[in-house]
């Protein structure tokens, strides 16, 4: 029996307290425990991290780039969602 390919994992790291985990890269590992160890050994060698998540790449569901128009363009016209849309007299100061 041929050895199956070693699964691919995505690595997310929180670099400082208060920050969100951010995708930093991928690695191969046979299971979650090994993936976490490998993530530590590969992606935090220069003190980059305080917390690690590893997620099987196969568990990620991605939006289809071909549907970019339908997915994201409708949001672009809703400028009233942004604070700069509204005028407040300067005398009032920062709001």
């Amino acid at each position, binding site marked *: 029996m041929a050895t199956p390919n*070693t699964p691919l994992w995505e690595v997310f790291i929180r670099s400082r307290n208060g920050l969100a985990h951010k995708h930093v890269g991928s690695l191969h590992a046979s299971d979650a*425990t090994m993936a976490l160890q*490998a993530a*530590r050994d590969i992606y935090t060698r220069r003190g980059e991290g305080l917390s690690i998540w590893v997620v099987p790449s196969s568990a990620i569901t991605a939006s289809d780039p071909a549907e970019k128009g339908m997915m994201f363009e409708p949001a672009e016209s809703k400028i009233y969602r942004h604070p700069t849309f509204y005028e407040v007299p300067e005398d009032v100061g920062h709001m």
Partner: protein
Amino acid sequence: MAISNIEVAETPLVLYALRRADDALVLGHRLSEWCGHAPMLEEDMALSNIALDLIGQARELYSYAAKVEDKGNDEDKLAYLRDVRQYRNLLLVEQPNGDFAQTLVRQFFYSAFADLYWRAMMTSRDTTLAAIAARSEKESAYHLRHASEWIIRFGDGTEESHKRAQVAIDHLWAFTGEMFAVDDGERALIHAGVAIDPGTLRGRWLTTLSEVASEAMLTLPQNDWMQQGGRSGRHSEHLGHLLSELQSMQRTFPGLTW
């Protein structure tokens, strides 16, 4: 000008630091031999990290030994200009890498001890050793976890991996007793609160080993015949070759700055 071996005034404290430094350097050196040759890239990374931790520990311990000795030696003289009879490391750490199972079993035996040892040494009355211990303890805790996970996968992986791990355990077992031995010089340091008695760690060390071995369905040997000699410079034949490589530059080009 040829530089022969340096003389080291091995007072109990110098010798104590030197022994731990030699352990760390020799094991770090062994692990560094894997760099570029590991079974997967992720393990090249992991073993190099462990090697770097150990070389770092060795450097601190050598520097401390040199400082205590106060005879103009330094980390490099201590590492590069003592011959096999002057090296004080455990026989365990000088054993060749063998296959990946032998490397990891060696690491597992050593790290399971080092983790307990450094944790205990954090309370040393010697503030330098206590500080080195505080840093080394975190490192060895991770080394232990890394090795344990592999032992479990070997044991509970394939028939071949199980067999290789068991062979390595049986082969290396006789080198583990030395970790718990104490001589008169060390006994005085233990009494003074500078060192800890490694004998008191053996029970917990065995518990760690048993837990991992049981999960891995591997067997720890029953025989209690233990090889000794590393601490007093009576080594296996392997160490001389390791040192001839490690020291080749300093021996070929004596007294230069690199």
